[in-house]
């Protein structure tokens, strides 16, 4: 049992030269859902690969010469030593250009950046991960971490919401996650013919869950802000303390080193102080339209 307050993880060190991009090669492209694919990237320089480490929740800046840079959360297993997965949705010019690349192509990568999920603080507690849409990508490294040390955590629940059954991310891994002791539940906003699972929004799954020890439950949430808002409300109504609620926020991250100011959220910068925040650190700013 662990009912002490969840403490923030230590801020990971930033790369020695945060502006330096390293060349990575696309080893594999795994189509996931419509306009979303996972890119398995490997460092060309083996000495970089040998020392590169990230923590769940961190992101990299991917650079396409002549096109630009984009912040992409890392969806890989933190124990990866050869390939690092990045799940990317086509949204703007850089990701559109990325989508045209084939395995073997090279691009630049700098990182990792940002504050991670408080995984170590989840030890001895019930852990609930709530993901909406592509929000499962930044949470997948947490799942890998929890599975690698499953006995350190009590009940682990993953709640996944998507627009349609075809929009559920990483469905091929669900059976393995369940077999490894995760209570995984899915729901969709719109059912397709033949879908026999839940229909409704993901906060409803949390509403239905038994929370025998809310004081000893940690909630990690990533998805559209409206979905996170109602998920957090549900958790608070059930008695989960605010210091146990963490979410991954996102803004327009351009420099990743708190210089350009594009990702400012209230007094914080998402690239440096986030993307993972304790809910009460950013709650007042989530209510301000335009921030």
């Amino acid at each position, binding site marked *: 049992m662990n009912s002490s307050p969840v403490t923030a993880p230590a801020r990971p060190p930033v790369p020695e030269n945060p502006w330096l991009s390293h060349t990575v090669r696309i080893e594999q492209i795994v189509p996931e859902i419509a306009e979303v694919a996972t890119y398995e990237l490997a460092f060309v320089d083996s000495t970089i690969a040998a020392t590169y480490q990230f923590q769940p929740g961190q992101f990299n800046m991917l650079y396409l010469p002549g096109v630009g840079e984009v912040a992409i959360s890392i969806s890989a297993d933190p124990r990866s030593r050869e390939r690092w997965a*990045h799940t990317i949705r086509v949204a703007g010019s850089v990701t559109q250009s990325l989508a045209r690349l084939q395995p073997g192509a090279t691009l630049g990568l700098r990182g990792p950046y940002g504050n991670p999920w408080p995984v170590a603080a989840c030890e001895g507690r019930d852990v609930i991960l709530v993901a909406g849409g592509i*929000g499962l*990508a930044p949470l997948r490294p947490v799942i890998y971490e929890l599975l690698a040390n499953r006995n350190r955590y009590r009940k682990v629940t993953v709640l996944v919401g998507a627009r349609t059954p075809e929009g559920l991310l990483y469905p091929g891994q669900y059976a393995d996650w369940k077999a490894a002791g995760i209570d995984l539940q899915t729901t969709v906003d719109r059912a397709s013919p033949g879908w026999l699972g839940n229909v409704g929004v993901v906060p409803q799954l949390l509403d239905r869950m038994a929370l025998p020890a809310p004081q000893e439950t940690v909630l990690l949430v990533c998805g559209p802000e409206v979905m996170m808002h109602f998920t957090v409300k549900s958790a608070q109504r059930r008695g989960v303390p605010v210091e146990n609620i963490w979410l991954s926020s996102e803004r327009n991250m351009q420099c990743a080193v708190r210089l350009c100011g594009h990702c400012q959220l209230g007094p914080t910068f998402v690239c440096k102080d986030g993307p993972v925040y304790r809910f009460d650190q950013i709650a007042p700013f989530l209510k301000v339209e335009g921030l």
Partner: protein
Amino acid sequence: MSVPDPLLVEELSTSPFAAGWPHRIVSEVVPISRQVLYPAGSIIFEQNAVNRDLFLICSGLVGLDMRVPARGNVRILTLAGGELLAWSALLGDGQMTATATALEPVRAIAIDGSRLSDLCQHRPDIGFHVMTRLAESLSHRLTATRLQLLDLYSHTTPHVLTFGAREH
């Protein structure tokens, strides 16, 4: 005078619907309630049919489908343990607005809608508790429906996070 089923009393008093109700209120509702079981795949009620029971789902998953011309039955929602089903039995004329199907074995408490309505009318203290819980349930369902309408995961929706690919 019949002795109330202790399992039914226990099930009802520990349900989210009656949680926190004084025992005297629960004991008034028990005589108009009964436990029901539906095997997976069975129809609990059909759209447009008259159903007189308000259901409190104890366990299992229930699908709510609406018939749409040229699209057939469209599943609009699923309900699970602790949730209410078939409000029209209490609030309306009993004509169901959707078809309810047990997607798994479903255990529920069926409360006679017209007798519950009479009870609420003649006993305002019971009416207050029942209608408060019903309004809470409706409020939650309305919020959830709004979220579905927002189509949050559509990447054409502006101001919606799509982590990992926000570019300007």
